């Protein structure tokens, strides 16, 4: 079908669309640009009038300070360990449980799943204080255990993976069972490979959520040795209000890993984000 377009009118509208898109994108980028720029300035030029759009002189002293005087490498290491362990845990446990809920029949299945869904509605702040007391009782505060174990599985992850696994045809699983596979083997050899797109989404959402999480790690860690990047950055921002250039160096170091991962896996990120919203 051919629809005649009126070229002139459309080109004006297009021009306007591009103008708005470009202007708003610049507004989105400026804060990031300003943050990177400031991190490369000498402190005394941070609030110079008129503002320095290009750092002169360009300096790395702020990064050197943050990396040597403040344990940012340690924060980074903690963030990596916590995010990776949490993500691996969720991939394994959430998918396994989702498989049981989606594809196996056992007494009480629907009732248990319903309770899971109810719990999903409870905001984490409700559990926060008792959780903290549990951590102190177990002597888990200021250890990786407190940062990782409570988040090893997530109801949201189970729910999402269940939706995903429901679309795998039962015949495939039955064929594997007839071949003598145990339920775990069916999961490992048949379900997991088929679930890879769903798992990719789960990995991204869990990793991002853990990397950026603030309140929980803030509460269960008191020593710098255990701080994750956001906690360390907030700490730096509080106690070092005067030196903005150093804070910005910390900001860049905190944000950069996530941004790099995002730029490389953009498609998966966007698909992951939209999957939850559009499937309902």
């Amino acid at each position, binding site marked *: *079908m051919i*629809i005649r377009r009126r070229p002139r009118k459309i080109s004006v*509208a*297009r021009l306007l*669309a591009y103008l708005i*898109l470009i202007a708003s*994108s610049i507004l*989105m*980028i400026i*804060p*990031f640009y*300003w*943050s990177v720029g*400031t991190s490369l300035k000498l402190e005394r030029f941070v*609030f110079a*009038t*008129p*503002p320095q759009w290009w750092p002169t002189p360009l300096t790395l002293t702020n990064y050197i300070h943050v990396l040597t005087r403040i344990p940012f490498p340690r924060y980074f290491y903690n963030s990596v360990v916590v995010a990776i362990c949490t993500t691996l845990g969720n991939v394994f*446990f959430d998918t396994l*449980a989702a498989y049981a*809920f989606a594809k196996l029949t*056992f007494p009480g299945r629907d009732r*248990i799943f319903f309770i*899971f869904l109810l*719990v999903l509605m*409870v*905001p984490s*702040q*409700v*559990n*926060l*204080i*008792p959780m*903290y*007391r*549990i951590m102190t009782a177990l002597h888990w505060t200021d250890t990786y255990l407190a940062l990782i174990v*409570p988040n*090893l*599985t997530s109801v949201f992850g*189970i729910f999402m993976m269940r939706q995903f696994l429901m679309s795998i045809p039962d015949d495939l699983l039955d064929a594997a069972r*007839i071949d003598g596979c*145990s339920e*775990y083997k069916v999961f490992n050899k048949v379900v997991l490979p088929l679930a890879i797109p769903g798992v990719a989404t789960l990995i991204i959402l869990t990793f991002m959520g853990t990397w*950026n999480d*603030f*309140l929980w790690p*803030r*509460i269960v860690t008191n020593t710098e040795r255990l701080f994750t*990047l*956001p906690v360390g*950055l907030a700490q730096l921002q509080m106690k070092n209000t005067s030196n903005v250039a150093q804070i910005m160096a910390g*900001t860049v170091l*905190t*944000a950069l890993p996530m*941004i790099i991962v995002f*730029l490389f896996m953009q498609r998966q990120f*966007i698909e992951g*984000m939209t999957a939850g*919203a*559009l499937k309902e």
Partner: protein
Amino acid sequence: MTAAPFPARFNRFVHKNTMPYLFITVPLITMLFFMFIPMIVSFWWSLNDYSGLQPAKFIGLTNYIQLFTNDPIFIKTLVNTTLFVLMGMGIGPTIGLLTALLLNQKVRFQSVFRTAYYLPVMTSLVVVSTIWVMLYNHNGLFNSIINGMGLAKVGWLSNPNIALVSVVLASIWQGFGFETVIFLAALQSIPRELYEAAMIDGAGSVQRFWNITLPSLRHVIVFIYIYGIIGSYQVFDQIFVMTAGGPVYSTSTIVHYLFKKFMDLQLGYASAIAYILFAILVLFSFIQWRFFTEKKLEA
């Protein structure tokens, strides 16, 4: 399938009936210890005078009554949080929809623009807040620009009348890209034939928007508002980093106040705050649940 000999059949029976439970053991235990029990304990504490140091003392609904009748700061946090939600949800999703509509016009470099909008969404709120604290500084970029235009500097985070709005602005900047991406995906899934048929019928672009685009987005719009409202009511990170609730409680929100009471070792009181938040969120979850079950009944 031929019947297996008895022991094998028995093994298979045991296997089939224990494996599923084994598969859900870890989530079940985690949920029990880190969600279910804390949830009940929290409710019990909300009925107690409890500092965590001395034994809890049962005081019934006193904490709740105190919060609503004798704690003007708590009422202020309720108002602040609601204002935060109203302003954020009033503006954010609209910007998200507008940018999505623009991006959906088959523009070039669509993914570049989308990346720009989405970048802050996957950046930690602590990072975003730290950057905005610098921008909002008395001598920061915003005031430099305003001053350059010959206007007086603004106390973005130090003026109690403005501080909450400043936090909202930063939060909208951070979050609307999520809505852009969701709306864009939803727009792209609307069948082209609908638009083509409407164009043949002579519908203008405004009519097409009202009669095709908006109704097709109904589901997504509800999703975005409900999740947005639920998420915004839990606002904490921005407040903690940007204003710490000040100046004079003008930006204190429910969760920030809860955190403060927790730090002050008023654990019973803080638990009551948590349950009030819970009640607010349940209300919105209920609305959403009604909407989606209605949808299913219609279909």
